[in-house]
């Protein structure tokens, strides 16, 4: 595995909720990344965001790891949940909150604050 792939893997495995997106929560650069972020926030998810735009290799390595071709990508406790459509669908049905509680415990809303990490 490349160093970059190892760092991406590390974020996926160690952050409670990882969102790979275009831009950051403070400056979102794509409508679909915004949709995924909004869905996660609506469920109170402690989001750790990674901006994939600084280096095209981030997206390549990420998709190679996850088998998911597009951005955004949402992971909960190391498991790929999906992209913006799935995040929205799960948030609307209430399943996202159940998933978060199952994976992170009932107190997941206060478990961590939204943050941004870099992989390059």
């Amino acid at each position, binding site marked *: 595995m490349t160093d970059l792939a190892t760092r991406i893997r590390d974020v996926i495995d160690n952050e409670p909720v990882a969102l790979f997106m275009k831009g950051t929560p403070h400056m979102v650069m794509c409508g679909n990344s915004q949709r995924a972020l909004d869905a996660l926030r609506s469920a109170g998810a402690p989001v750790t965001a990674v901006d994939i735009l600084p280096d095209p290799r981030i997206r390549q390595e990420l998709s190679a790891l996850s088998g998911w071709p597009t951005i955004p990508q949402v992971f909960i406790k190391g498991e790929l949940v999906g992209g*913006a*459509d*799935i995040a929205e*669908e799960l948030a609307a049905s209430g399943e996202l909150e159940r998933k978060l509680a199952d994976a992170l415990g009932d107190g997941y809303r206060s478990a961590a604050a939204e943050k941004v990490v870099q992989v390059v």
Partner: protein
Amino acid sequence: MERLEALLRRAFPEATDLRVVDRTGTGDHFHVVVTSPRFDGLPLVEQHKLVYAALSEPMGDGTIHELRITTRGRE
């Protein structure tokens, strides 16, 4: 749009509902809807991966700039 529909029909011949919507009228932002018994019991992430796989060619050659996916199991 016909090309996407043909690729999806080939990948999901058993689909009971299959639609491709050109969201912006510009031939590059699509919403596809597939209802198929093949999705029964599969997590959404795996359902959407099957759709991406069926459309890997137009995804890869730049035909599709944005793809929204709605999948359903048996109705």
